[in-house]
């Protein structure tokens, strides 16, 4: 393809555009586009940038609430946390690049999400992630896991933002398509938020940060296509991150914002200079003119197409107050970063690009954004999976053997090998780091704490997308509540297969509906998010993974609780369960998969109203100082949760098992809306439960011996459980 030549449908098809989309471009331009123009259309209309398959459904999500300062549509969502402060946060995927080049793919995923947050004027204070890898025995898993973890750490550790939490699953459906989602949370003054809409025709457009190279060209388009055996040949389209430059850029931007010089700002993420210039101009209802010869480049003879589609990292585009230009330049010179006026805001509502004194592109902005295709893709409602009874799944094995196998299963095993590679303490405000329920980060110089959690259970979503979508929200809600913090809002990352397939589209519709349902009931609106589709390799889709990243606030971080057992002689309660329950939901559980060898089956049903009731009770009990440790019951059920509390704590637990019904169902069932609470004031706690109409039952007490004792069975020592817990990932990575 030569730059000046008129393009044909063949060229458009190579860039991932359909024939209908090609026809639409011709109609809107009333002529044939050149290479640069076609590249801009294909990037802006890619699934990654346009959300064309998901937009119809995303619009149904609740996005408003009195706590919301900025909902979806900006670089990140903004939520009021009181005292004039705001939490700014978002999650984003970097799946395809991370499979091709795990270190750089994951590192630039972290860099990108950090830019989204500090672009809004917020100083990042926490990083989290949600990762999915293939089967633990698959030949590529070890290589991908070590590369991704090193990449996440490589960026976050260097830039000096603590990685405080995350989640990981392993499943064969990710063998050829891993998921790497990174979340960042920042802190800003609620009256000092910066937005991307360009203002004031004639104002200078400034390019800052690193130089533009030929890396990552057309990455957004790659992220919008299925994988095949040849995908690894796309290695050159993976960007290379430089956390050092990222750190300088972050400090320079925050300093510039404090100097009140910035009118609007947008990071150059997916589709680089294309999406940043188009979004800034179109959101402002204006136009933009850029001289590409002024763009700082690090390679010679870059074409207009290459400059516009490069995804080189650590770059920003901004419009500044003209009178502050010299202040701005001085700040960037202090930080040794490029600072280059490359164009101006216009009132033409067109994007005009000059290159070598010629017009390389002159297109109206409206079609790029407003006329971007939006599809109502057909979907085939899923057939509901059968309910599997406990009798169908229960195996005749001793409880301790089952516990050993579950604690050492890939999905439940300790993540210590992973999170010890992340600096979780830098900034010195981490109160609860990785390894528990929610992470808790102190808001610097205050008594407040921000609780954060990322969650999704793909096997539930796979079996029943609606229930699974609800469950991702509710599990995050439980994790936040178990720390004592009040859930505020969520960001989501929808990872699915090819939406042109009706069963995949049905997963998207079901999961989004489920998320919306839960978010409405729990009053946790969706304020930002990301969609990653086409997660397929050679036609095989991933287990759907709509990740929720939730934040919550606690007024006094000293009141927050962890999950480790602290003192002996305290009552252990299960909240959300009554004495009549001596069975449990084993269908679609980790037990069913690991012990009974059966995947699928209907997942446990999720009732957000009950979740709200039980979660409120836990938070109230923590606020009233009635409980000294709390843990949500999720994967692996009650006994796994208890084991985790012993492993994380300084004492043990003695538990009475029910004398009838299914012991395994009781121990390993994954019924929702439940917590384990270690109660220090039983009368007040039971009174609170009664007043709140919440079911709770005492199942045992804490003991000074560091062991888990089930009445009538030999005690299981903490050392044994910790060793089982550590074994699988340590052995794999040794």
């Amino acid at each position, binding site marked *: 393809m030569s730059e000046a030549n008129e393009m044909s449908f063949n060229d458009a098809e190579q860039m991932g555009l359909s024939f209908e989309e090609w026809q639409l471009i011709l109609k809107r331009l009333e002529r044939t586009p050149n290479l640069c123009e076609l590249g801009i259309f294909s990037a802006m209309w890619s699934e990654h940038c346009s959300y064309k398959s998901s937009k119809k459904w995303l619009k149904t999500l609740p996005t408003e609430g009195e706590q919301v300062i900025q909902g979806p549509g900006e670089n990140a969502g903004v939520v009021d946390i009181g005292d004039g402060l705001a939490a700014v946060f978002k999650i984003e995927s970097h799946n395809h690049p991370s499979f091709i080049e795990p270190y750089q793919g994951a590192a630039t995923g972290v860099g990108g999400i950090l830019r989204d947050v500090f672009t809004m004027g917020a100083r990042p204070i926490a990083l989290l992630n949600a990762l999915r890898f293939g089967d633990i025995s698959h030949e590529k898993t070890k290589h991908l896991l070590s590369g991704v973890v*090193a990449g996440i*750490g*490589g960026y976050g*550790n*260097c*830039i*000096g933002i603590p990685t405080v939490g995350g989640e990981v699953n392993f499943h064969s459906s990710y063998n050829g398509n891993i998921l790497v989602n990174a979340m960042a949370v920042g802190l800003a003054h609620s009256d000092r938020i910066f937005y991307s809409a360009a203002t004031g025709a004639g104002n200078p457009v400034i390019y800052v940060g690193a130089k533009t190279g030929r890396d990552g060209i057309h990455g957004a388009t790659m992220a919008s296509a299925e994988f095949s055996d040849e995908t690894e040949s796309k290695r050159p389209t993976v960007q290379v991150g*430089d*956390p*050092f*430059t990222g*750190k*300088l850029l972050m400090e320079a931007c925050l300093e510039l914002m404090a100097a009140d010089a910035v009118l609007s700002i947008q990071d150059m993420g997916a589709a680089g200079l294309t999406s940043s210039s188009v979004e800034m101009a179109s959101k402002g209802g204006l136009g933009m003119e850029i001289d590409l010869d002024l763009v700082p480049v690090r390679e010679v003879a870059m074409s207009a197409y290459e400059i516009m589609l490069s995804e080189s990292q650590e770059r920003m585009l901004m419009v500044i107050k003209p009178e502050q230009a010299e202040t701005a330049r001085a700040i960037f010179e202090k*930080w*040794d970063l490029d600072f280059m006026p490359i164009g101006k805001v216009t009132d033409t509502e067109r994007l005009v690009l000059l290159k070598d004194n010629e017009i390389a592109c002159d297109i109206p902005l409206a079609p790029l954004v407003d006329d971007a295709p939006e599809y109502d893709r057909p979907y085939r409602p899923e057939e509901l999976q059968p309910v599997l009874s406990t009798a169908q799944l229960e195996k005749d094995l001793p409880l301790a053997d089952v516990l050993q196998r579950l604690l050492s299963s890939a999905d439940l095993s300790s993540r210590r090998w992973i*999170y*010890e*590679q*992340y*600096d*979780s*303490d*830098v*900034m*010195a*405000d981490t*109160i609860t780091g990785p390894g528990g329920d929610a992470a808790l980060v*102190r808001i610097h110089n205050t008594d407040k704490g921000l609780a954060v959690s990322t969650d999704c259970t793909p096997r539930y979503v796979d079996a029943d997308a609606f229930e699974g979508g609800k469950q991702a929200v509710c599990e995050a809600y439980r994790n936040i509540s178990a720390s004592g913090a009040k859930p505020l809002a969520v960001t989501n990352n929808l990872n699915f297969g090819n939406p042109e397939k009706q069963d995949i589209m049905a997963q998207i519709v079901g999961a989004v509906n489920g998320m919306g349902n839960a978010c409405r009931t729990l009053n946790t609106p969706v304020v930002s998010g990301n969609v990653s589709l086409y997660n397929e390799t050679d036609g095989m889709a991933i287990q759907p993974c709509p990740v929720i990243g939730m934040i919550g606030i606690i007024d006094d*971080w*000293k009141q927050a609780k962890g999950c480790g057992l602290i003192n002996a002689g305290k009552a252990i309660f299960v909240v959300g369960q009554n004495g009549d329950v001596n069975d449990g939901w084993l269908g679609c559980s980790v037990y069913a998969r690991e012990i009974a060898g059966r995947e699928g089956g209907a997942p446990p049903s999720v009732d957000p109203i009950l979740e709200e009731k039980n979660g409120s009770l836990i938070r109230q009990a923590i606020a009233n100082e009635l409980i000294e440790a709390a843990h949500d019951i999720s994967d692996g059920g009650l006994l796994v949760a208890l084991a985790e509390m012993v492993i994380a704590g300084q004492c043990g637990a003695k538990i009475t098992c029910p004398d009838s019904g299914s012991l395994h169902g009781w121990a390993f069932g994954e019924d929702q809306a439940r917590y384990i609470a270690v109660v220090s004031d039983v009368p007040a706690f039971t009174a609170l439960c009664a007043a709140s109409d919440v079911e709770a039952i005492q199942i045992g007490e804490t003991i000074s011996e560091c062991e888990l004792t089930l009445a009538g069975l030999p005690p299981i020592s903490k050392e044994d459980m910790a060793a089982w817990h550590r074994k699988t990932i340590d052995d794999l990575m040794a």
Partner: protein
Amino acid sequence: MRSAILIFPGSNCDRDMMVAVERITGRRPALVWHKDSQLDPVDIVIIPGGFSFGDYLRCGALAARAPAMEAVIDHASRGGAVLGVCNGFQILLETGLLPGTLVRNGGLKFVCREVRLAVQETLETPFLADLSNGSELRIPVAHNEGNYFADDALLDSLEQGGQVALRYVDNEPSRAANPNGSARNIAGILSANGRVMGMMPHPERAMGNGHPSDDGRKFLTSVLEGVAR
């Protein structure tokens, strides 16, 4: 008590150290930008952790040649006290104010965890004056290149001269207690005059008040009170 904290591009523990010092002394440290070649008189210069200059070339190598470090070398040559933590330790080795080197962790991975340290019997130094020999400190490490390396002759002379300040221990210095494979479990060393100290663990992250340990506060209190005497 006057202190200064150096800031290089890529430093990322400067604020944490500033907060820690201010909490102990009640006085905010002076912040010195790497391009400044002037250093006002202070009782101690602290070089904080981070990734100065992105760890490019070698950890600490570029920072060691910054104008501010010339002033620090000058300050040290007049007997001034200097504490380097993590990347600050690496920088002090690159300047030659401390002997030996720090290489990649034995496990070839970044490691962030709490470690146990034993205060060693040392030559006369203001840093450890209030900490008894053998007392144990729990303080976190977070680094990629904290594996202290030197030839046996140098290690012997450091030990004999009382220049080993801190070792990783699990009651005793053991392999399991050593997070990075450092020679003889060394976590921190002193200069021959006892006025310059480098250490890998981050005391500013063990200040109590929400941190799992407050031994870093104990340590920094000893350092800051020691140099002010």
